[in-house]
């Protein structure tokens, strides 16, 4: 029998970026709030402190900051004919754990999608007609425009502390920035980071090829910074321990540097760690939630936390899982293409070239997760989908993130993977390679979805979530297009040798190698309750006091890293809750 905790106005599930943002915004409304975090508490010092944190074996390889599959995982299959098996060893994607969530171990890459991406279906239909949309592609518009979101992107970027160079200020093109970005109302809060030689070299080649390179925007402080909450960052020293690590230097944008100490001062805010939410509980009429049941790890018991407002702010996969377990939204059925929860799971289609230069020295140990120069010349806004035969786009980036010895030693194909030959290869090539990455969009399809697994259960006896996902021809055509455009630019840099890594026709999803932790969709936002789980304010269509944060809201994945959009949507939703919902709780659409 679950113990019942004292009722709160708001319960927030998960204390990462979106949980912290909603906590802050709603605490400022005077509401009594509790955030429930399944993981541990963590602070820069002592949890990320030097030199303990810069241990590649512990954190880079053994994934010390990630969730343990034995505590929490899902099953995966590539199509409905396969039997899904539990993801027992993290590979393809790495969900984090603990206060700060993925916001502590990300690379810091921060983007706003391009203008066409918010209304992609309309954009395609207007320009080329619905005929070019593959039959099994569930292509949708975002139910909110860029113009509406702009102030909230801006807010997030200034809270998070993003370094970068504007290329389009209120419609005016700015030399040195990204000419293809959507117009922004303000400069980035900090100037761009300095660029390493590989980025500069790529920019030179890209420019010669007629492209428009600009410094990559990222949540890595280029100088001392104070945000609107009085929270602070210190300038980065380019140690290269960003992704998979917590920053020991207060230099990477995270809930710890941007929000948490300010939030913890609020007397009406409280958070509990080791508190894993098991289910959202519903009122008898099924129209609203009454709170959540969580497992209190320290007490070893279940606790019911009543609340008037439930904010799902866990990682995308966990939000979808909780919604499926709690009966929020009709589960998606691929046979009929009906149902909303679990619909339109999408990922990211990435590729790239690695080049080896006998006579170049790159000093790869200098870097950051968001380092380098990018181009958006092959972004969605610039591609003739009708002519090229796919829907999608990518941004490219060259910029070393680290020179860590276990995972960051690129070797020319054919070099032995162990023994004397490997050592010789390392001696010859360490520090002499660079790469260009293509970071591409991924559309949503009827066959890629999330539901509850019929076989496997977690340690609480709940069914695991099941992912059914495979690469699709449209996105492979997109990435092959990128390869054809990148090859001549890479060649123009005159490497001693080069090798490509782009998915080819017929490629099957492989969960073993790391690809990206950009899992999106499953709780998509839309203006039609038949094809979306949440409305334009991230409010559950069928339970108005549940709001669902995170990348689950993306109808299909954008060509960029998702954090900027996740942060912008969180501020957008928080604004709607504050200004429209609290005074009169109801369905806002």
């Amino acid at each position, binding site marked *: 029998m679950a113990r019942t905790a004292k009722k709160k106005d708001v319960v927030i599930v998960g204390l990462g970026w979106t949980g912290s943002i909603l906590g802050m915004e709603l605490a400022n409304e005077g509401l009594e709030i509790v955030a429930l975090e399944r993981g541990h508490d963590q*602070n820069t*010092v002592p949890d990320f402190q030097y030199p303990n944190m810069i241990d590649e074996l512990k954190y880079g390889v053994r994934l010390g900051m990630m969730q343990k599959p034995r505590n929490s995982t899902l099953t995966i299959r590539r199509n409905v004919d396969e039997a899904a098996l539990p993801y027992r060893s993290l590979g393809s994607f790495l969900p984090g754990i603990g206060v700060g969530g993925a916001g502590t171990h990300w690379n810091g890459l921060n983007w706003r999608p391009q203008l066409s991406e918010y209304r992609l279906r309309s954009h395609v239909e207007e320009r080329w007609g619905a005929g070019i949309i593959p039959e099994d592609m569930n292509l949708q518009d975002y139910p909110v425009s860029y113009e509406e979101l702009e102030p909230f992107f801006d807010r997030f970027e200034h809270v998070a502390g993003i370094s970068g160079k504007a290329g389009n200020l209120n419609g005016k093109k700015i030399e040195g920035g990204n000419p293809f970005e959507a117009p922004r109302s303000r400069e980035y809060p900090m100037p761009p980071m300095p660029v390493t030689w590989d980025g500069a070299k790529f920019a030179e080649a890209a420019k010669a090829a007629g492209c428009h390179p600009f410094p990559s925007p990222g949540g890595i402080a280029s100088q*001392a910074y*104070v945000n609107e909450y009085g929270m602070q960052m*210190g300038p980065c*020293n380019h140690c290269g321990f960003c992704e998979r690590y917590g920053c020991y230097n207060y230099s990477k944008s995270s809930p710890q540097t941007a929000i948490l100490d*300010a939030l913890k001062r609020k007397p009406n805010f409280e958070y509990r760690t080791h508190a894993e939410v098991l289910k959202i509980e519903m009122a008898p009429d099924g129209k609203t939630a009454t709170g959540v049941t969580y497992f209190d790890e320290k007490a070893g018991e279940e606790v019911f936390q009543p609340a008037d407002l439930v904010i799902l702010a866990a990682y995308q996969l966990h939000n979808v899982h909780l919604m499926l377990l709690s009966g929020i939204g009709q589960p998606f059925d691929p046979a009929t293409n009906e149902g909303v929860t679990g619909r339109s799971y999408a990922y990211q289609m990435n590729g790239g070239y690695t080049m080896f230069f006998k006579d170049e020295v790159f000093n790869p140990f200098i870097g950051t997760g968001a380092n380098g120069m990018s181009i958006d010349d092959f972004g969605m806004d610039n591609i003739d989908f009708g002519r090229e035969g796919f829907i999608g786009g990518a941004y490219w980036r060259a910029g070393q993130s680290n020179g860590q010895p276990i995972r960051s030693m690129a070797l020319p194909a054919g070099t032995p993977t162990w023994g004397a030959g490997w050592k010789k290869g390392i001696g010859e090539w360490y520090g002499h390679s660079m790469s260009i990455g293509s970071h591409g969009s991924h559309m949503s399809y009827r066959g890629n979805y999330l539901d509850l697994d019929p076989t496997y259960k977690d340690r609480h006896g709940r069914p695991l979530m099941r992912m059914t996902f495979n690469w699709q021809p449209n996105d492979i055509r997109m990435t092959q297009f990128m390869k054809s455009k990148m090859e001549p630019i890479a060649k123009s840099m005159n490497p001693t040798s080069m090798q490509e890594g782009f998915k080819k026709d017929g490629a099957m999803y492989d969960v073993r190698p790391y690809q990206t932790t950009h899992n999106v969709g499953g709780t998509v936002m839309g203006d039609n309750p038949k094809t979306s789980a949440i409305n334009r304010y991230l409010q559950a269509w069928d339970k108005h006091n549940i709001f669902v944060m995170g990348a689950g809201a993306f109808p299909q994945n954008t060509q960029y890293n998702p954090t900027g959009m996740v942060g912008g949507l969180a501020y957008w939703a928080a604004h709607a809750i504050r200004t429209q919902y609290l005074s009169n709780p109801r369905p806002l659409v």
Partner: protein
Amino acid sequence: MKTFLRVILILAVLGVVGLLAFIFVPVQRTAAVAQLPADYKAPAGSGEYAMRAGDCMACHTAEGGKPFAGGRPIHSPMGTIWATNITPDKETGIGNYTLDDFRAALYDGVRNDGAHLYPAMPYENYRKLTEEDIRALYQYFMTEVPAVSNKVEETALSFPFNQRWGIRAWNWLALGKPGFEPVSQDEQFNRGAYLVQGAGHCAACHSPRNLLMAQDGTDESSAAFLTGGEIDGYTAPDLRGPQSAPQKWSTEELAAYLTTARNAHSTATGEMMLVVRDSLQYMTPEDNLAIATYLKKIGSTGGSTAPATPSAAPEKAEVTDTEKMLTEAKADMPLGPRLYLDNCGGCHFVNGKGAAEIFPELDGNSLVTAKSSKGLLDVMLHGAELPSTKDRPMRVRMQGYNDRLNDEEAAALATFLRQAWHNDAPPVTAEDVKAVRR
């Protein structure tokens, strides 16, 4: 001969009587410096504000104890003095104190039973409080602070310091005039002076002590006032010399430091961090600006804004030999700078300039070059944390390097810091490190 003996006898009797009188005749208490009506009501909040300004809580609250219930040990050169319970509890606190009793404690350092307080209670400074503030404080402690029954350990110093009556003589020599008299036409300066000299009791740490262990000056008319002192073995830096922080920093920067424990140059550590945490962050922006204005004006440069120092040097500062050495990072670099690169440079950088409000400057930092290396070593070994304040809520924490540096290494690194860039302070030994390590 008889006459002589008689004289001796009379003198002896007089002496004994005098001594007995000195010990037993009650001390004359200082009267109120202004006549306020008996039913005077202090403005709402002014008592708590004066308490914050006086930082009463810092000493009179034990670690983890109830506010003002006493029991915190104050380490003095004479031994441990236990802070008393100043809640309005009648048995164990000050519940029986009349307004006159209360004023006597703050002005004269006398308890309501007539015994002398040890001057760990800074009545040398509280003596300057206005009657309005005395009333506000009295009302606050009697009506707003919850009574807590907490019997605090009796202070038991060894002889002769356990003879409290001896303090009477000390008081004759140490105590100045009661109340505060403004000396300037500038109201901001006067307000700053009042806060610094009175409630703020800055001189208790920042003024040197004279031969009698009294503060060498309790206002700016004394040359030694606020020119640096010592607290528990730590150096409280000079606030008036040309290289002192108030003289090098702008008034606004100094005020920001007082309000948030951090500014463009430095961060507060040790006792000063506690002062910001418990006291200064609660002052109004105007009051902290007034304090800064006063400190700047009474310094050697008299508040002139002319750049006096490296930290105020133009943008293109010269590259020091230290910066050059750290940048080149040659293999034969000595141990100190090598350890700096391995442990410190990531935040404080090769130029020792750090970053505004988060990584303090080490070049010209008064903690680094302090007479006593205890503060520097303590931060190096055990780390430091900034308090969460309203304007700057982040508890920025520097990690300690206790586990990473042995005594010789810590000494080499500290010595390097004390002599790097423009710094010029004596070296540190492994024994110094050993004494600080905990």
